[in-house]
């Protein structure tokens, strides 16, 4: 069991960090040493190490050395902050911010960013002969545009209703990053918290898209096979009411309840009293998440609940195609930590209802690769009985599942990973913390 648990979840990123960081209270304490930042333009950008910090300043505002080191650190920080966004005219992209539709219309798209950002939308455009025509054009969502402006890849004009003749390449009022922050945030459901999460993940190379398409032309992953969604959650709730009765009824018919057991001879021959059998027969109340939590209210989750999935997230390694995005690797809820509470069980249930199930983590391979065998039952069963069984299967005692030779995942690893996962990003005025809530499938991994 230790093998499965000690399996590293991801590559440790601490290879370049010095041990001093580990001992300083988790590194969250903002132990940043700006003096280790390379001077702008002198060397290739290197993510510097965190510096060491002192316990407290010496009485009277710090010793001479402390003051000197602090001044140096501050000066380095302010130097780094003064860096301007200078791009070569050959690599600059251009766009026009249209506040009335909350989109940036990209007029010149350059660089690799546009392989994962932006979508095409048909808008009525004035063509040469003076008539209006629907034309496809590349558009950016507010967060995408702001991110590109901020990292110095996109020069943005603001669409102004003014006569711009004689100004050839000027397409509006030039926007500063400050203006972009002031005007672009707040449009199309984008809050500062959501933008901060978006930018944080994009800076790390993740691909981030919206879960709910803000407009029909925005590409989203095709619906999952099996039709999860709101209808299912309704069905689940309905079925959960009856599940208590139906399961016991079905169990009676299928023969899980062995009412004739005392009559069977085997009972008197074998002593069928292993732990698992005894415990199984004791399990009267159904367990697991197929039973929705009970509530006296019809809709236990208020419509104003902040727990709504906002972003789809893809790992950098995922083969992402902008026009036909695949199913996301993670889905993210962004909340404001100052106003939102910890999610209630109902809110989590609501989230899990729309999420897909993830397969349990595979155990670590040792030596030989596992041999996949086709199950013998599928080949052997004759047609005539199989149709009969198919129709009346719910009436008949269930046949034992063929034991597959697939390596069984370790139960603790599977329980820890959970069946369904949701990432919640809590933002407290610029501080982002990511949490993962997962639905543990305890009923599927009985530790018997």
């Amino acid at each position: 069991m230790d093998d499965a648990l000690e399996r590293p979840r991801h590559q440790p990123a601490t290879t370049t960090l010095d041990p001093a960081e580990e001992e300083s209270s988790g590194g969250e304490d903002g132990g940043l040493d700006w003096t280790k930042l390379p001077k702008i333009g002198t060397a290739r950008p290197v993510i510097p190490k965190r510096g060491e910090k002192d316990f407290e300043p010496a009485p009277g505002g710090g010793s001479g050395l402390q003051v000197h080191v602090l001044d140096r650190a501050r000066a380095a920080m302010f130097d780094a902050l003064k860096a301007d966004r200078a791009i070569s005219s050959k690599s600059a992209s251009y766009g026009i911010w249209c506040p009335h539709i909350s989109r940036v219309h990209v007029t010149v798209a350059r660089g690799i960013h546009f392989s994962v950002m932006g979508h095409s939308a048909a808008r009525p455009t004035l063509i040469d002969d003076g008539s209006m025509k629907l034309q496809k054009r590349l558009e950016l969502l507010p967060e995408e545009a702001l991110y590109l402006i901020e990292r110095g890849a996109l020069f943005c004009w603001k669409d102004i209703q003014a006569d711009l003749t004689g100004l050839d390449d000027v397409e509006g009022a030039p926007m500063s990053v400050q203006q972009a922050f002031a005007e672009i945030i707040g449009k199309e459901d984008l809050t500062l918290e959501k933008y901060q999460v978006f930018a944080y993940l994009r800076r790390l190379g993740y691909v981030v898209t919206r879960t709910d398409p803000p407009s029909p032309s925005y590409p989203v992953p095709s619906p999952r096979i099996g039709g999860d969604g709101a209808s299912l959650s309704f069905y689940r709730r309905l079925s959960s009411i009856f599940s208590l009765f139906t399961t016991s009824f079905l169990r009676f018919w299928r023969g899980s309840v062995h009412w004739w057991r005392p009559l069977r001879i085997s009972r008197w021959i074998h002593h069928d009293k292993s732990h698992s059998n005894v415990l199984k027969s004791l399990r009267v109340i159904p367990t697991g998440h197929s039973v929705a939590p009970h509530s006296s209210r019809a809709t236990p989750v208020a419509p104003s609940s902040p727990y709504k999935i906002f972003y789809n997230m893809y790992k950098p390694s995922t083969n992402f195609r902008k026009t036909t995005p695949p199913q996301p690797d993670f889905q993210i809820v962004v909340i404001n930590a100052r106003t939102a509470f910890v999610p209630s069980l109902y809110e989590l249930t609501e989230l899990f209802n729309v999420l897909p199930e993830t397969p349990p983590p595979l155990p670590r391979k040792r030596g030989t690769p596992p041999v996949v065998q086709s199950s013998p039952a599928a080949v052997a069963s004759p047609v005539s009985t199989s149709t009969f069984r198919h129709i009346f299967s719910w009436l008949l005692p269930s046949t034992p599942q063929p034991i597959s030779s697939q390596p069984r995942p370790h139960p603790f690893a599977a329980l820890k990973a959970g069946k369904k996962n949701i990432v919640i990003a809590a933002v407290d005025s610029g501080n982002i913390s990511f949490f993962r809530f997962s639905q543990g499938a305890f009923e599927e991994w009985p530790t018997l």
Partner: protein
Amino acid sequence: MTQPILLRVSNFKAYVWDVDDINILRSHHHICGILTGTLPHLSSQNIFLGLPLQLMPEEAVLLVENGIAVLVDDPSAHHTPSPSVLKSWKEARLNDVRQQIALTEEKGSIEASNPDRAMSENAKRKRKEREERRARAKSDGVPCIPAEHSPSPRPTPENPSQTTVGETPDNTIAMPSGSYTVNIPASSSKLEWYAPRSHISLTIAREAGIWLYPSTLQERARCGVFRDLWEKGYYMGGGIKFGGEYLVYPGDPLRYHSHFVASVIEAPDAALRPMEIVAHGRLGTGTKKAHLLCEWNDETQVVSYLSVEWAGFG
């Protein structure tokens, strides 16, 4: 008294966009805020962030109440420039571009004598690296790899500005139209059509509908506790990752560790569950901090403090 610092407010959030203002706030008023933007020259990491500086609402309230700063409604401060203003902006830009191209050409003419000088810093760096790499490949496994190169992660491919800038130096000289640098200004202060109108007090800002904090008892308690600790000379940071409202530092967080994690209790009769004390005591000790319970009395406007530490007898 110097000019008050302008806090640019949009969507009920206060930002500082001028580096000098950030310096003043930090050095003179021990207000840190949190940097939240992308550093343009280090855009693929989250450890060091850049402009703007986002202020916690408590910080903004304190600065305005003390007359150190005033609030500015930022979206309405950006006016629409008239065509004539745009024209002059465009001419200024054209002049700048022409100068840049002229400079490049001038450098190009003396390139024959010294090939290094005509290139941009970036290009030089790239060339130096290329040469180093070649040298390294030749001497195969010589241990004297420069320290700043070996542990650096490769810049991710989503960084076009660097790669493309590096590839263009030859074109820069050859192309008659010339390549130049496009600057995206960070702050709006230098734009001609930026005219901020300041709101001197919180009441005025509240009437204008741009700032509402503090509006509840909890928010008042936070502001009260923040002010009290700030007046004692502490630096404060966000404490959400340590289970409290604030981290309390004895000096600049750049150089010193925090001593306390402060959590705000709204009223003297507010319930405090024993589990909270256990959790705070445990977590605070585990992170070498003491947990500070700060109790706000809204009637007398006084804060009383209690600190919790894990004694660990037995």
